[in-house]
């Protein structure tokens, strides 16, 4: 988020209020600070800490949406201390479901959901046909990126960009972009040595 801060703000300036990069950077810095010294192994606590920190520091619509994403992941992870590919698929689906519950967005509304839904679906599809977790992360990142690109011609139906009506078409959605960045980070860290092209 720090690396892409200016890009996110630039995208937001075109169809929103020019604060998405600043807000996500502030939130993720706070998360990193909070996670230092956190015990490993308690995944629910880990996800909950991330969610509550984002809720408290990001602001905007992104705060409660990303906060809810991680809080739902915390609920879905339950008592587990490790996640296999199947477990990740389930946890990701729960998180994305939380984003949809909170924001009421569906596919095609030009929001975070347009990156997150295809990512979770690609992850699940890969796992279902026996693919590895590493491959699933890779495919999820590729799907998220395609989802981001697909937001460009869309007319926004949720969030501040929806006020622009037709004028929102032709711009890449900043929320979908930050969602893709998260999935891409997941792929980089958890998804093998296979580089995901930017």
């Amino acid at each position: 988020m720090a690396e892409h801060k200016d890009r996110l703000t630039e995208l937001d300036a075109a169809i929103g209020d020019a604060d998405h990069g600043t807000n996500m950077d502030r939130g993720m810095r706070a998360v990193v600070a909070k996670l230092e010294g956190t015990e490993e192994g308690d995944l629910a606590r880990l996800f909950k800490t991330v969610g509550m920190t984002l809720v408290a520091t990001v602001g905007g619509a992104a705060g409660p949406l990303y906060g809810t994403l991680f809080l739902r992941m915390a609920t879905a992870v339950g008592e587990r201390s490790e996640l296999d590919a199947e477990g990740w698929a389930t946890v990701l689906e729960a998180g994305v479901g939380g984003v949809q519950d909170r924001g009421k967005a569906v596919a095609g509304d030009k929001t975070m959901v347009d990156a997150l839904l295809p990512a979770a679906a690609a992850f699940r599809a890969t796992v279902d046909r026996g693919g590895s977790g590493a491959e699933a992360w890779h495919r999820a990142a590729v799907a998220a990126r395609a989802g981001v690109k697909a937001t460009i011609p869309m007319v926004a139906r949720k969030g501040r960009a929806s006020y622009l009506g037709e004028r929102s078409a032709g711009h890449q959605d900043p929320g979908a972009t930050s969602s893709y960045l998260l999935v891409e980070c997941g792929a980089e860290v958890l998804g093998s040595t296979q580089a995901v092209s930017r």
Partner: protein
Amino acid sequence: MKKLINAPDDVVREELEGMALAHPDLVRVSLDPFMVLRADAPVRGKVGLVSGGGSGHEPMHGGFVGRGMLDAACPGQVFTSPTPDQILAATKAVDGGAGVVHIVKNYTGDVLNFEMAAELAREEGIDVEAVVIDDDVAVKDSLYTAGRRGVGATVLAEKLCGAAAEQGRALKEVADICRHVDELGRSMGMALTSCATPAAGRPTFELGDDEMEIGIGIHGEPGRERMKVAPACDVVAMLAGTIVDDLPFRAGDNVLAFVNGMGGTPLIELYVVYRELHAFLAERGITIQRNLVGSYITSLEMAGCSITLLKLDDELVELWDAPVVTAGLRWGA
């Protein structure tokens, strides 16, 4: 763009510190989390009123905290919603046992953060009624957008509900007055120039020297139409015409007419606008029974104005005239 600040990251905190120093008789300020609280909060047995939103719209909301108006304001960063933990803290700080009304402007961020905060407050046993204000007629109200934005009617709702709460009315009654104001109030704004958030440092949008944006939002969101700058009478006809047709306001109606400056427009121009609005409404048989002229819901240094009309009845007039003692509005006390 030039700013009279020390550092972009410190603006909101330093503004709050300034408010605390300037108005210790009216407010208490918390810096962690950011809150402006009525000095004597919580008031036992009185419904608490909490609002909030991004900073950059001063005097809204912090300047409206005090007797006869808000009990707490939760300022976010500039043009950024406050967070649920912050709103929850404010809700708890002002709950005098009679419940708390959240007055929320209809922006996705504000709505989601207040919604989460209300859920958390209810879990802690506080009665919360949330009312979303969406009075901006520039935005199409359809299933395919986030709906109309909350603008000028928010200021009026905060004053009117504040008076009702001060009279000791119950939670549901105060919330109903807020909904009533939202139903009967309509607004539309325009910009002559852009504005720049301290963090970005450059204009949020570009507007040519000879252009204006009709239907602007208070965060610089583009409006309905961009056109060549026109005389005040034409601008008023465009704004007021859309507003009057929308409710609709009819001959014989009594209204509160609110001419608001966006932050960079001098009062001399706002009175010119008020003059035009007065003539426009008189021609249609609409009587201005009360008025408010000045910069109350702003967009940093943006030049421009908005017009809000609220259809009045006897109850609303009485609530409007009731005493109010805040940094931003003060009369009758």
